[in-house]
């Protein structure tokens, strides 16, 4: 039976983890490689890096991080943030990323998804959708949530599937950072419109939220950052909890 996936996400800036696990025995708590290794050893089904490096001159730091991580972690590694072109995707894959998530570039130029999925295969193209509710619909935001594209998120999700995305990483901007749980309505609506797997993101504050994302939101995978970073729960605890709720997980 196919298992639902739990994906811890690490924010990386200038090659360093911004919010990370606070373990005393870490040699270098800011090193994304060490943190990723803890997650993969702890049963994470995949690892996600979100590069939030602002300046262009430091953007290359992520390549080194990916290269070092892929030599230590033997679970799939997804990398996103600042991916602008097919060439960026190529570079990340060559460094050892297994999937690349594309956000702003996919909105600005739909050819990026089309061309990259054709060139590298859909299996490594994840389209990240940052959506915010506006009255009765959700709109797609770009540039880390700063710009409203005005595009309807549900239609956009369908279009990205048609363009060759292998998965959708859907983040609710209304819920992100609130710890109130995923936007279940948004997840359900997108999941029912597409045939590709959906990864739910944004708003996890406790383990029941993960359960809801899968059971109610119909997500194939659940992504979370802060509940794991701050040691509130380990990935193992999360999986054991999901298991008691009847959700198939890899233990």
């Amino acid at each position, binding site marked *: 039976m196919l298992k639902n996936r739990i994906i811890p996400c690490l924010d990386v800036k200038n090659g360093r983890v911004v919010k990370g696990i606070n373990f005393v025995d870490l040699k270098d708590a800011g090193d994304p490689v060490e943190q990723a290794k803890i997650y993969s050893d702890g049963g994470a089904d995949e690892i996600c890096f979100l590069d939030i490096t602002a300046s262009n001159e430091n953007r290359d730091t992520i390549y080194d991080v990916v290269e070092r991580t892929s030599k230590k972690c033997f679970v799939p590694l997804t990398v996103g943030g600042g991916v602008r072109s097919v060439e960026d995707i190529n570079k990340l894959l060559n460094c050892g*990323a297994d999937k690349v998530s594309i956000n702003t570039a996919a909105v600005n130029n739909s050819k990026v998804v089309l061309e990259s999925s054709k060139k590298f295969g859909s*299996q490594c193209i994840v389209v990240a959708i940052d959506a915010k509710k506006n009255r009765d619909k959700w709109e797609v935001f770009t540039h880390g949530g700063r710009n409203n594209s005005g595009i309807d998120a549900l239609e956009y999700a369908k279009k990205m599937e048609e363009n060759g995305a292998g998965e959708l990483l859907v983040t609710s901007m209304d819920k992100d950072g609130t710890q109130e749980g995923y936007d279940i309505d948004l997840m359900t609506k997108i999941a029912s419109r597409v045939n590709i797997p959906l990864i739910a993101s944004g708003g996890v504050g406790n383990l029941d939220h993960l359960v809801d994302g899968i059971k109610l939101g119909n997500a194939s995978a659940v992504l979370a950052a802060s509940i794991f970073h701050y040691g509130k729960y380990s990935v193992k605890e999360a999986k054991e909890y999901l298991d008691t709720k009847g959700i198939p997980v890899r233990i």
Partner: protein
Amino acid sequence: MNVTIVNYNSGNISSVINSFKEVAQDKVNIEVTSDLNKIKSSDKVVLPGQGSFKSCVDALNKINGLIDTLNEFAITNKKPLLGICVGLQMFADIGYEETETKGLGWISGKVSKIDNQNGKYKLPHIGWNQINIVKDSKIFKSIENNSHMYFVHSYEFIPNNKSVIVATTDYCKNIVCSIEKENIFGTQFHPEKSEKDGLQLIKNFINL
């Protein structure tokens, strides 16, 4: 001993390289190349494959003499070869992804899209699924039945002769996820991304 990972521009093979190097440490030489002479002289060959069946077959054909060299290695000389994902699928006679494309024809059968029962199941089949080992195989030594492996695919290999099937996985129905025919081995899942059990499989192949 030399193990060669065939680099024929079939997409991203970094993870395959990393995992083999991790397992081999310094005891086994891992070569990544499309050089025909190096392939010929190596002890074992790994044939990775990402993207579509057609794009991988096209990429093999683009390197002059590569298919002949692989045929000689695996069929004439019967040396161990491991196909991963589309690398396994290409063993078939024919594939139907994008368009009808001839495969290597090493193991009689076809590659067709997984029947997801009109959208009842998501495609691609992505994630960790349990494998059902149906036959003893050297590459599954020390790997328990029902172990989890990481899958990413929308197409499945359907061999004509079921006796080559070593393991299956359950998604929509029983899907062939590993085969063995004499010296030819293949996995539909990605051992390079399947943590300890995946690395064990790689170790088993290297130790054959």
